[in-house]
């Protein structure tokens, strides 16, 4: 039975788990490194004194990602081919894995609590696309060439267009978030938006299809 609490959404500007939580380099404008190296040290105690040993481990960065499993996307707005979508909503995709948009970012949040995702959502009209490269047999993602970069999202503001939404959590601390992620994962999703108003014309529909809205990695 209900305990009197009402429905709520808790939004997180970014979420990371695992080794990525120990990345030390803060996110900063400009070219991001392709990957981050994380030193892991083990101290072995012996009768002759401590024997330290360190291994530098490379975390998978955006430059290593070749393809995305489309099953990780659980919702798209507008849906592919949808012609009467409400244009007052931003186009967005939702991910099954709540830390997915920041998983391969080779940096940690900066002092302003901002962390850019490693991928962004792009919305374009047909005539803004110069050419398309089809996916290759070895699994390389489809790519597009645009006529002008002015219509692409500002990567410096990419941190603002991704978030985590947790259902029914209320005020969050790390323990409660982790408990939800592990025990009730259906309550947490990640969302990636494109801050571009959709046009009420036919050309907007294919622009939001998975193919032409393929995420561009921050490399």
């Amino acid at each position, binding site marked *: 039975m209900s305990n009197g609490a*009402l429905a709520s959404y808790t939004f997180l500007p970014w979420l990371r788990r695992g080794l990525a939580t120990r990345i030390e380099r803060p996110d900063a404008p400009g070219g991001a490194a392709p990957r981050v190296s994380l030193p892991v040290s083990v101290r072995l105690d012996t009768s002759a004194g401590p024997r330290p040993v360190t291994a530098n481990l490379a975390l998978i960065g955006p430059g290593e990602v*070749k393809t995305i499993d489309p099953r990780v996307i659980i919702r798209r707005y507008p849906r592919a081919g949808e012609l009467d979508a409400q244009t007052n909503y931003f186009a967005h995709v939702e991910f099954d894995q709540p830390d997915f948009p920041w998983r391969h970012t080779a940096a940690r949040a900066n002092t302003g609590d901002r962390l850019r995702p490693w991928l962004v959502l792009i919305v374009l009209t047909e005539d803004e696309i110069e050419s398309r490269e089809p996916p290759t047999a070895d699994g390389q993602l489809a790519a597009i060439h645009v006529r002008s970069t002015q219509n692409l999202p500002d990567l410096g503001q990419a941190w603002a267009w991704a978030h985590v939404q947790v259902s029914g959590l209320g005020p969050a601390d790390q323990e409660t978030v982790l408990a939800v992620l*592990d025990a009730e994962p259906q309550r947490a999703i990640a969302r990636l938006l494109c801050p571009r108003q959709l046009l009420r014309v036919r050309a907007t529909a294919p622009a939001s299809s998975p193919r032409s809205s393929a995420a561009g990695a921050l490399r």
Partner: protein
Amino acid sequence: MDFDATFGEARGIELPPLDPWGALKAALEDARNWSGRLPAAVVAAVNLAALPDAAHDVVLIHPSGTAVVRQRVLPLNKTLQRFGEFELAGPDRFEIGAVSIGADTTPQWQPVYDLLPPSLSEKLTDAEKLSRDSYEPEVVGIEAGVPDAVHGGAKAVDVEYESRLVDSTWQTRSQGRYKLPRDMQIALTATGARAYSTLWSTGARKFSASPGTPRGVALDDETYVVATTDDLSPGTGFGRYRSKGAALQALASHLARTPADRGRLQVVSASELAEVA
């Protein structure tokens, strides 16, 4: 007809003592001995491009998981009597003392076990060579875990729902706003897009337990204890050991301190002790 004869020239070939630290250090620093492990709720969901040839020694670890190192040079946390075919020079025990990840000097970690031959680190008699298992679980590395999740400042907002009847593309009617109980909202997530994600309902994961679901049955590894020889009651001051070798080493250490217990204690499988109890 019995006979006892020795043929050939008796040669005593002695290998020089060897300090295992060099080989152990190289193994722990070798990136190829490191790997990543993902929590049950995390799916990689990406395919990786092949690394260039110049980066052939780079091992990529998944950022959302833990780091695991396994080496097979020698068992850790165990007193060594020998190092392979060599007598020991230098320390005879390498105890995992501390682990750090980046600037974090107190991350969670746990020992990693793998099967190693007892003869790698112990001087076995012929009888022991026949009676002991060929391979026993030993500590071969660590799993440096960071199980927590870190996130930016949270912002919670109450949710109001509104039912709206869409009569036509230009006319809708509101049926009023209402607030949903939190329990009902959480229950509804069980039928949401995330709950029916094809990431979990297709492929191999379709047949695995959902994250957060406790396993109904789990097999435990065999463990060993020190018990008395007359009634199999647990020996005082002993624990439960993952390998027979570790239990035997604990017993030998005890007998060195308390010779009166010689013949009164033995190493048995913990399951035998449970059957007696």
